[in-house]
C-alpha cells in the first residue's frame, strides 16, 4: 500500500492544551480509496481530522501529502496542495446562496469560478435543484451536499469528511454516502471519512481503521472488520485489554 499512498500520517500526537487526545495514530490513504475511521465517542476521531486538516498543530508525528511533508503547513497551503476538509454539521454559510457557497470554495485557490462550478454540478447534479436557494434554509442532507460541493471547488485529491451523517435521517444519510461514493468514483478523489454510523459508512468504504483512546486499535477491509470480536470490547468497555 505504501507505494501508492497519497496521504500518510505517522505516529500523530495531538491534543488541546494539557489534554492530549491522540497518542500516536498512523494511517495511510491511497488514491481513489475511501477509508473510514470509526471508534467510540471521545476516541479522537475528530481531533485526528482536525490535525490532518491543519486546524490543530500536532505535538508529534508526521503528515505527508503526495510525498510532501505538510506536518506544519498552514490550512491554506494544505488546501492548495489538494487537501479538502468538510467539518462536522453547520458547515455551510447559512446566509449565502448555494452558488455563493461554492464560490467560497475557490477563495484560497486559483481557478475559474464558472468552470469549477460547472464541473462540481456535473459530479453533484442535485445541486442544480437548489442552486439559488439560501443555504441555511436547506435540509441537513442538502446542506451536507453543498458542503461537499464547496470542498470540491478547490479540486482536491484528498477529502477529509467529519461525520457527514451527523444529525441526518437514515434516508438522507444514504443519499449523502451515495454522493461521496460518486465523488470518489468519478473524480478519483481519495476520501477519509470519520463516522459514528459504522455500518452505513463501511458499505461505501474500501478499508477501515478503528480508533480507541487516541490509538489505532485494528484495521482491515471494510467487509471483514466488524466481524472482529475486538470491536465489541472497544465499544462496550475494557479497552485496556485490547492493546
Amino acid at each position, binding site marked *: 500500500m505504501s507505494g501508492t499512498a497519497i496521504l500518510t500520517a505517522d505516529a500523530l500526537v495531538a491534543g488541546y492544551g494539557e489534554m492530549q487526545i491522540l497518542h500516536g495514530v498512523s494511517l495511510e490513504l491511497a488514491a481513489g480509496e475511501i477509508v473510514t475511521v470509526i471508534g467510540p465517542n471521545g476516541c479522537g476521531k475528530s481531533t485526528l481530522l482536525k490535525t490532518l486538516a491543519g486546524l490543530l498543530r500536532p505535538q508529534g508525528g508526521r503528515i505527508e501529502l503526495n510525498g510532501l511533508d505538510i506536518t506544519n503547513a498552514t490550512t491554506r497551503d494544505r488546501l492548495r496542495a489538494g487537501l479538502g476538509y468538510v467539518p462536522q454539521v453547520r458547515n455551510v454559510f447559512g446566509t449565502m446562496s448555494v452558488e455563493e457557497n461554492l464560490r467560497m470554495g475557490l477563495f484560497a485557490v486559483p481557478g475559474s469560478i464558472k468552470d469549477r462550478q460547472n464541473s462540481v454540478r456535473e459530479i453533484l447534479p442535485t445541486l442544480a435543484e437548489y442552486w439559488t436557494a439560501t443555504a441555511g434554509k436547506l435540509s441537513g442532507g442538502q446542506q451536507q451536499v453543498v458542503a461537499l460541493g464547496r470542498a470540491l471547488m478547490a479540486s482536491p485529491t484528498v477529502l477529509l469528511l467529519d461525520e457527514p451523517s451527523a444529525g441526518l435521517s437514515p434516508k438522507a444519510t444514504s443519499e449523502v454516502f451515495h454522493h461521496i461514493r460518486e465523488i470518489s468514483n468519478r473524480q478519483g478523489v481519495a476520501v477519509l471519512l470519520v463516522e459514528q454510523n459504522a*455500518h452505513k459508512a463501511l458499505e461505501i468504504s474500501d478499508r477501515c481503521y478503528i480508533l480507541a483512546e487516541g490509538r489505532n486499535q485494528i484495521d482491515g477491509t471494510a467487509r471483514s472488520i466488524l466481524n472482529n470480536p475486538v*470491536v465489541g470490547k472497544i465499544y*462496550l*468497555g*475494557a479497552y485496556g485489554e485490547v492493546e
Partner: protein
Amino acid sequence: MKEILEIKCLSRRFGGLQAVNKCEFSVRAHSITGLVGPNGAGKSTLFNLVSGFVRPDSGEIRFAGERIDTLSAHSVARLGLRRTFQIPRELKQMTVLENLLLVPENQFGDRIVSVLSQGKRVREEEGKNLQIARGVLEMVGLSEKATHQAALLSGGQKKLLELARCLMAKPKLLLLDEPTAGVNPTLIRHLMSVLRRVNESGVTLLIIEHNMTVIMELCERVIVMDRGQVIAAGSPSAIQSNKQVLEAYLGGVSA
C-alpha cells in the same frame, strides 16, 4: 428497593426528529445508574425532559412518587433533582468558595435590607453556609483550592466545582452529563472515587457517559438508549455481551 425516578412512555419530538420515543425506565433510590447509547440516541434530551428544561409531548415522569413532568426547571431543582452540564460553567473571577456560597436559597444576606441590619444574622448565616461549603469541597477533594480563583482551575477541577455547586443544594437525585468528558485519566480516577463518596452520602446518581470503563466500574445498572428508546437495561456485564447494544453503537442493522 424504592424507585426514585420513574419514566413512563415518554416522548418528545423536535421538528422531524423523534428525539425521545416512548421511553420507559426507572432508577432505584441510592443507586448509581448509567445511561449510555450512541450519539443522537436521545440521552441529553431525556436529561432535559427530566430536569424540566424541555417539556415532553406525552408520557409521565415521577420523582419520589410525584409527577414532575409539568413543573418548571426551577421547581424540579427545588424538589432535589439537580443536573450538571457537559461543559462546566463557573464564575471565573470568583473564588471556588464564593462559587459555592452563591447557591444556598433564601439567604437573608442576599437581600438589600440586610445591609441596613446589624449584620449579626448575616454573619451567622454565612458561617453556616461556609461550613456546608467546606464540607462539600472536602467531599469532592477541592479543599486546597477553596480560596483560588475558579479561572485557575484545570478542566477536571472545574468539573468537580460544578459537581460541588450541585451538592451545595443537597440534592436527592443528581443527573450527571458526561462527567469525565475532557478530563485527563488520572483525574478520572479521582472523579470516580468522588462520585462513589457522593453516592454513599445518600445521593442517587444517573450518569450519561461515553467512557465505558467508567460506566462498567461505577454503575450497578446500565440503561441503553438508541433512537429515543430504551433498547436494553441490566448489569454492566449483561450489557457488555448484548449483541443488540453493539449493533446500536455501530449504526444499527444496515438498512
